[in-house]
């Protein structure tokens, strides 16, 4: 047997093994049990519109709010971190280290329960408002580090060119550095957006009204009541909704990246 033939034989036997495993899995699976527990079709037909209009809508809404807020806050942190005044740098570094080091869940609990007790201050929007504020604060810490990496990756010649034309440091930052930094960090930024979409599920720890439920809470509550009660069907539905949000998002961004790559 020549080397090519041997390689081809190994190749095809791996394919055969894979197909065998799939057939075995299909044959051995208890399909009625799976259907009863994960795909209760009647229940799905009955409940998916409300899940979309309340759960999915709130997940998207919470993500947009906490990402936008976190992004703006992150910009402030980055400018502080790059500031010539040392105390600003210390403050930003301390904040970033603190909030990257804490689980988001702890921050949510702090904001929703700790802060009202300790300071008598309640975030606008009730418990959800407090939870979103917590998500913003955590997201800001991560986004700030990403943005800083992007800003530092902008070639120094770009900044020198802007300054040599007479642009001020602020104009240079807004017109040249930030636009280029954002292009550079578009992939990690998307990553953080996707993480944030999933992190909105952490809001389940705070009690919230029926109309404020996001996908995970919605699905969890449907496990104990309604037409899909007692099964994991609602979780399957939530999973499909999450993927329906995250997959197109990552596809759009990778297309944007390819387009940009083409014009480089």
């Amino acid at each position, binding site marked *: 047997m020549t080397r090519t033939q041997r390689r081809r034989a190994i190749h095809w036997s791996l394919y055969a093994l894979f197909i065998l495993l799939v057939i075995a899995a299909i044959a051995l699976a208890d399909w009625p049990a799976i259907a009863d527990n994960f795909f209760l079709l009647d229940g799905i037909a009955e409940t998916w519109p409300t899940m979309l209009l309340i759960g999915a809508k709130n997940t998207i809404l919470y993500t947009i709010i906490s990402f936008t807020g976190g992004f703006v806050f992150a910009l402030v942190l980055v400018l502080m971190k790059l500031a010539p005044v040392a105390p600003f740098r210390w403050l930003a570094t301390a904040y970033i280290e603190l909030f990257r080091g804490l689980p988001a869940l702890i921050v949510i609990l702090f904001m929703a329960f700790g802060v009202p007790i300790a300071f008598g201050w309640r975030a606008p929007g009730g418990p959800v408002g407090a939870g979103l504020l917590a998500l913003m604060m955590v997201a800001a810490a991560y986004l700030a580090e990403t943005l800083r990496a992007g800003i530092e990756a902008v*070639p120094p*010649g*770009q900044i*020198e*060119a*802007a*300054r*040599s*034309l*007479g*642009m*001020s440091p602020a*104009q240079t930052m807004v*017109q*040249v550095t930030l*636009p*280029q930094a954002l*292009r550079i960090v578009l992939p990690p930024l998307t990553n953080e957006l996707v993480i944030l979409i999933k992190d909105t599920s952490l809001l389940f720890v705070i009690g919230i009204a029926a109309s404020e439920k996001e996908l995970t809470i919605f699905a969890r509550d449907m496990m104990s009541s309604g037409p899909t009660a007692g099964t994991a069907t609602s979780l399957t539905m939530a999973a499909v909704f999450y993927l329906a949000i995250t997959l197109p998002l990552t596809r759009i961004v990778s297309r944007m990246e390819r387009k940009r790559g083409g*014009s*480089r």
Partner: protein
Amino acid sequence: MSRTNTHKPLHPTQEMDPVAPAIEVRGLHKSFGDKKVLTGIDFHVDHGQVVCVIGPSGSGKSTLLRCVNRLEEPTSGQVLIEGIDITDPETELDRVRSRIGMVFQGFNLFSHLDVMENLVLAQRKVLGRSKEDARKVAQANLDRVGLGERGQAMPSQLSGGQQQRVAIARALSMEPDMMLFDEPTSALDPELVGDVLGVMRELAAEGMTMMVVTHEMGFAREVGDKLVFMADGVIVEEGDPATVLADPQHKRTKDFLSRVL
């Protein structure tokens, strides 16, 4: 950003002096940490003069050029632009810089903007020109460097020689009093050097004040009014380009020229 920006004085007390040299450098020292790069530079560029600076790499010639618009902060000494000391903290540095065009070895076109936007940005933000005016000036300068048709191109779609000509057009769009060139052809493929030197030749012929750090001895001889030879952070020799190139007085100049010519 405001339109009145252009009318702000360059310095609160110092006046522009029409008879002062365009660029004057006095006792300039520059160190990076312990490393002394410039150790006492005195020289000047008169209005309308083309001064070429040559020298081995590491001689400090690029650092000197970058001190002239304070992209590099001088450690000590003075840099006067049309009689105004730009090392003085009171000087409106951004305003002074807007009158000094600079062309870099690596082109440094804004990679996120197309050619036209590259030329328009600083005209709008620094000079406060309207979009229409800025585009008009930009188009005229693109035509001048022979790239009038490429306004919509992204920098990455252009050859190095084209990018460098756009960079020159970008600097010219600010209608500067003088131009600094930092090894403008060193990053170019040999066949692209000619186009860029051609544009620079035209500029010189039009009477632009130019300070050019270069390895192009032919350009220095034909276009330069003065040649400055630097080594180890000092000016070793300066004078009429043809004379310096044909009959260098110092051993270091002779050694350098015998290696490059």
